[in-house]
């Protein structure tokens, strides 16, 4: 399946952690400004793949990566890239992780952290940015009166939206979501899903999810990873409903582990 002008392409991506071969020859294409769901049983390498897109994989113990990950026509694993340039590469990819990790600061400082680092120090500009992104994450009304409170005083659903606002504030192009709702109750889950669908207008979204229901509900494209191999990829309507591969069919019917 060929997407015209995919934003991210991997070429023969292989990852080993210790002696285990986690990702085997992954050749995946991620289209621009759409939601691509990555589905598959637990422990099959979905999170590892995500970590390859923003080179967070570098921080894992005992890891070896071979192959290319091409983002906007440049291989981010090119050996000539200096360690000191990595932060700029990572900035392009926002991350929404499974368990929210608010920074040990106030709500305001959490969102302002990224912009401040990248040079925006004008107080008024920052205030505007913080307000804007908290609104985008649907959190502004709930926190506008207590911006200086510690971020840990929020509920877990609110913390997740705070992390989203924080990630959006550095203006990434891609948002990587690693099972972002698995720790949340149904109400908070719905809120996040609605937000993600709103965001695809402006951002490319890669959503790793455990729940087929969620993928079916919001994804445009999908990829099925089974024990480190990319079995199938294509439009969501195909992969998730009428897949070409037998393995994919077995998975979506039984959701085996």
């Amino acid at each position, binding site marked *: 399946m060929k997407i015209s002008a995919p934003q991210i392409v991997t070429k023969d991506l292989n990852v080993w952690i210790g002696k285990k071969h986690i990702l085997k020859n992954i050749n995946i294409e991620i289209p621009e400004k759409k939601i691509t769901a990555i589905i598959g049983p637990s422990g099959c390498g979905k999170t590892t793949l995500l970590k390859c897109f923003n080179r967070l994989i570098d921080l894992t113990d005992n890891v070896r990566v071979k192959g290319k990950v091409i983002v906007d026509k440049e291989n981010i694993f090119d050996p000539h890239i200096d360690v000191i340039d990595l932060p700029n590469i990572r900035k392009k990819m926002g991350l929404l992780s499974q*368990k929210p990790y608010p920074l*040990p600061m106030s709500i305001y400082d959490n969102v302002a952290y990224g912009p401040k*680092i990248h040079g925006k120090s004008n107080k008024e500009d920052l205030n505007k940015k913080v307000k804007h992104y908290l609104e985008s994450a649907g959190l502004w009304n709930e926190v506008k009166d207590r911006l200086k409170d510690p971020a840990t005083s929020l509920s877990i659903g609110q913390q997740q939206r705070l992390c989203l606002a924080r990630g959006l504030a*550095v203006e990434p192009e891609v948002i990587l979501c690693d099972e972002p709702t698995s720790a949340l109750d149904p109400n908070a889950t719905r809120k996040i899903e609605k937000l993600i669908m709103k965001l695809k207008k402006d951002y490319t979204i890669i959503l790793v999810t455990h729940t087929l229901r969620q993928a079916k509900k919001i994804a445009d494209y999908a990829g099925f990873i089974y024990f480190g191999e990319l079995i199938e990829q294509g439009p969501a309507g195909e992969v998730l409903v009428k897949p070409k591969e037998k393995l994919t069919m077995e998975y979506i019917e039984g959701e085996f582990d």
Partner: protein
Amino acid sequence: MNFRKIEEYIFKILMLTSLIIVLGSLIGIIAVVLIKGGAAINWEMLTTTPKGGFYMGGGGGILNAIVGSIYLASGATVLAFFISIGIAIYLQREFTSDGAAGIIRASLDILWGIPSIVYGVFCFIIMMYLGVGTCLLAGIVALTMLEIPIMTRGMDEAIKMVPSELKESTYVLGSNRIETAVKVVLRQGLPGITSGILLAFGRGIGDAASILFTAGFSDHIATSLFDSAAALPTMIFFLSTSPIPEVRDRAYAAAFVLLSIVLLISIISRLLTNKFSKYIIK
């Protein structure tokens, strides 16, 4: 009655006795210092320097030692801070391989166990080589060497406990390793780091062996880095065995002040740890 029960009973008594001995010694020490020291403390003792030669008696107090101790311990703690925090941050996986970190930690462990007199002797050799006499600066350097392993260990423990996911969530914002270390890791680890610093300070202010031949001793308050300086521990060391009661009183008063400072640091450390835990994630 059976033997098993008797054996248990005997050992229980032995254990309780042991515990009482341990707690009793602590209470005994504090009591001795409070009683003897308390009797010797008065306004004059705390605010004047010794007159008539420190071995001879003749009035005056321990101000020179109080000020000297503050200079020595503060100077050493500040110097040690900059080195220790650098090493502690550097020990993270983002900066060093696990092998190199292992070597650094092992070296620090060994340095931690070296008796403080060795640091004093080492500094003395360097002083001889440079032709410098006993002075405040030498004492500060010796104390810094003593404090670094203690401080680094405390900071390292605090920084190790910062969850890697927290750091990763800043890296994806485009933060580099130093920005994350300073703005997030240090903040998250602040309670542990503070207690590490205070622990090192407490150790530094109480140590006599390392400053014995480096800082020397003096009747006067040090006015420059190259003056000899008296300190509370050395004052206690030299004057406890004096045959003159007034001179011994100075030792007791110094012990009172020193112990109070150490206990105060312990309390402050606990308070600060609680205060700094407000923002950190649990």
